[in-house]
């Protein structure tokens, strides 16, 4: 189905202060793919996401979502198809209770309250926090807030999910829940993360960004086991495939 396709062609972008963030970025993501975008801080990952969402517009190049060019005019329509979950849930949960936050999107589509309710309850159940619907955001734990901000986006029923650092600041169990959630979604997923183990477990494909350019784009199993490549981009192997820190036995040699 083409409307789940994300295509980016020759993107260039510089920030107002002159910093050239992206240089000639191109890639295509098709329906149902889950892609992890990795790289050091400042490599340009978040900039790519913002260009995909139309928060920023490229100096040159194009973004196409479902074969539709992203322009100021097509923004509202495209934003119905693409949902972005921010890094900081406090920025995303801006209403005074979770129900209203998750309902915010559907309400803006002028759906009637019954439809809104079914979407909200559906989204809350998907992420497993139905009982928190009347809670105020400041009463929630980090993991609960993260789940709530995912629900906020799910209630809009997007085709494509974009997530910026979904497991940052989460405790292990909450992180495990998020990983489980992501694996259960059939949407097209684009995830940026420093948590390479998350990328290993949830993404089939990885794009490595360095200095505003794409250094590698391929299957997760190939890229995330290539320690030279990762090293040269300021990263390292995912912790789960590094040598055991306690007994030093190697994991990669056991195949």
């Amino acid at each position: 189905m083409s409307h789940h396709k994300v295509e980016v062609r020759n993107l260039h972008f510089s920030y107002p202060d002159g910093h050239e963030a992206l240089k000639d970025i191109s890639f295509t993501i098709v329906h149902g793919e889950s892609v992890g975008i990795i790289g050091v801080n400042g490599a340009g990952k978040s900039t790519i996401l913002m260009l995909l969402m139309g928060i920023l517009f490229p100096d040159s190049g194009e973004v196409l979502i479902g074969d539709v060019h992203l322009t100021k005019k097509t923004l509202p329509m495209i934003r119905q198809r693409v949902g972005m979950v921010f890094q900081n849930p406090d920025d995303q949960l801006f209403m005074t209770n979770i129900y209203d936050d998750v309902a915010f999107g559907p309400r803006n589509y002028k759906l009637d309250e019954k439809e809104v309710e079914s979407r909200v309850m559906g989204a809350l159940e998907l992420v497993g926090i139905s009982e928190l619907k009347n809670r105020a955001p400041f009463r929630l734990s980090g993991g609960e807030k993260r789940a709530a901000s995912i629900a906020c986006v799910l209630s809009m029923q997007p085709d494509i999910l974009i997530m910026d650092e979904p497991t940052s600041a989460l405790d292990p169990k909450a992180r495990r829940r998020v990983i489980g959630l992501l694996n259960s979604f059939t949407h097209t997923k684009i995830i940026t993360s420093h948590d390479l183990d998350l990328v290993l477990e949830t993404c089939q494909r990885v794009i490595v960004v360095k200095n505003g350019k794409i250094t590698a784009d391929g299957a997760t199993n190939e890229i995330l086991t290539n320690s030279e490549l990762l090293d040269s981009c300021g990263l390292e192997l995912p912790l789960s495939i590094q040598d055991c820190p306690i007994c030093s036995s190697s994991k990669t040699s056991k195949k």
Partner: protein
Amino acid sequence: MTNLTSALYNIRLLDDLAKKNTPIHALHPLVKLLTTVIYLAVVMSFGRYEISNLLPFIFFPLFVTLFAELPLMPIVHRLLVVLPLIIGIGILNPIIDNHTVTILGANFSRGWITFLSLSIKCILSVTVGIILIATTGIDRLAVAMRMLKIPKIFVLQLLLTYRYITVLMEEFLRMSQAYSLRAPEQKGISKHNWGSFAGQLILRTFDRADRVYQAMLLRGFSMEYNVGRIEKANFKDFAYLTGWCLFFVIARIYNLSLFLDSLISGVVK
């Protein structure tokens, strides 16, 4: 800073209380709002020398506190914070108005009467204000405001302010603590650092506003935002409103304290 921590604690507490499940909490928010406002108008319409007239009005907050199972300590605590101001103004009354009155054989400056009247009014008004929010909560109050045709933009903006108060207070707290750990001799922020301290905070605030705006836009926000829920009133709500208004009117016209007093003295005789 104790102000910040106690304010945060207060907001959490009131938020907790507002989520309780009692008959009072179940009442329609607009009814509770109207009852409170009418109460305030009636109580404040009493003259300066009225005391016995005022006393029956304690029944309203008493009733609500009991049936809503509200804890007394927070209310008392709030009163202790607010009363000193009124006492500060009112305490001059006995000095200024020294026309003497004789009650039960003892001589008082008339100013004490106005002082007492003022204090009672203060206690009553602060109490019902807290009770209102503790039984309603900001969300349902927003629904009531929408029913009063207060524009959505204002209500939305009010909710946003409330939502981010806790976030910002926590941020300030962290920054204040960091500051005081490196400047233990100082009480508060010294004047050299006012600008950059507050300035840093405000810049972060702008960034946050940016991000919130983005989040809102990405979910389709436009000025036409619809707050959504409306609540229907039922018989119980109307009964509550009319019942209390009736009581307020009667207590305003007739001095129920005296009535009670004459009843008892009649019985005693």
